[in-house]
């Protein structure tokens, strides 16, 4: 956890500006977990990366190692990336130390592990919102999001014009977002 108050106070001085340490977790935490999860495919490890990154950033701020507040996001990203690379380096070392475990470096690919990032309620909401779309709209979104197909590929597969695919997709996204936001407000999530 990020300490609520340090010995030097809640705010770290950064050349003329102050950054609220306690809000760093709120501001960057979810993104770091998300990025780490995409790379490491391990939920507890991703959380650990976020914790360590934020602690390292706070320490750097206290040590006045960041001179420009506008560079804070880039700095946070660089620290997180280093943390992740460090984990990779350790895995290589383990693999080198024990040839029988060599392949452990390559963690099995699990389809969409980041899905664990979503709350069950949130998932249900999205499911309900999707159910209210037209089947053709769902199919376009599925081909686009799940199979990563381009507009041209989708148009070819569904035997539709590219403009029609583009129009239906943007309409579906707008509709989905509208339903999702409306439901989120209703459920308070």
């Amino acid at each position, binding site marked *: 956890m990020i300490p609520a108050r340090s010995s030097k106070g809640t705010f770290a001085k950064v050349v003329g500006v102050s950054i609220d340490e306690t809000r760093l977790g709120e501001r960057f935490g979810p993104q770091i977990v998300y990025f780490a999860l995409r790379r490491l495919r391990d939920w507890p490890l991703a959380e650990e990366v976020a914790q360590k990154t934020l602690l390292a950033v706070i320490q750097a701020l206290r040590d006045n190692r960041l001179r420009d507040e506008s560079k804070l996001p880039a700095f946070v*990203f660089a620290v997180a990336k280093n943390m992740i690379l460090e984990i990779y380096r350790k895995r290589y070392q383990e693999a080198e130390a024990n040839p029988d475990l060599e392949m452990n470096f390559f963690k099995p*690919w699990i389809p969409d592990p*980041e899905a664990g990032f979503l709350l069950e309620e949130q*998932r249900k909401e999205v499911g309900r919102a999707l159910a209210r779309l037209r089947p053709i709209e769902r199919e376009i979104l599925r081909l686009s999001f799940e199979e990563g197909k381009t507009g041209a590929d989708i148009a070819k597969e569904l035997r539709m014009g590219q403009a029609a695919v583009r129009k239906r997709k943007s309409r579906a996204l707008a509709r*989905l*977002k509208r339903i999702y936001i409306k439901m989120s407000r209703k459920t308070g999530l």
Partner: protein
Amino acid sequence: MDAACKKGADQEIMERYLTGRLSLEEAEAFEQHLLECQSCFSELQWRHAAASELRRQAARPAVSSGRTINYGWRFATAAAAVMILMAALVYLFFLSRGLKPDSEAVIDQLASLGQPPLYLPSTIRGAKSQPALELFAKGMREYANQKYHDAVPLLESAARLDPDHLPTAFYLGISYLILDQPDAGIPWLVKVVRADPNPYAEEGHWYLSKAYFKKRDLDLARRELEAVVGLNGSYADTAQKSLERLKTLRDVPK
């Protein structure tokens, strides 16, 4: 989304990020932006939620059922007659091939790779002193950037120097599949699944089933799916669902 946010306005970049189609540099630049722009991160989150849910929904609706065809009323009767005739012809066509009319579409779906296995390029220790590892590292950099055409020759060379290096065989097989060359990919994936012990067994069988689906060899595809189920790992449920879908096809070789 913040109207002033140019990145967020570029819907394409968000989708390409979600489906892993950005190069490493592009993805990192976009992630840095996500740290700066809360509205883009929120947008990404709900899109991710939608993508995950779409993926989760095993039963996929037939596209034709959702298509709205806006023929005028005066053409309705003629259109219906033409459609019935076409449906009958399509049915007869597939019947002649010993499959249900929607079999081809189902097999296409079963053959679909989805998002290819992720690989994060990193410095491989000892690579400089081992040419095979160095070639593998170079090939995987191309793979991570979705340049599969460039990855293949490098991985082929790595495999020639070190035929027992399983990651090389695995990613080479996958690269060929992505390039829609199942015949070239199958021998590499067979090599992967035959190794014992190896951590690629489950993924190897899974992608081998995809390769056989691409070749329309349903019997071998089913055998690979059964192997995946037997391993009882993270692909077991998905493989079981694929087997069930396969059973719905008529005249599947036993």
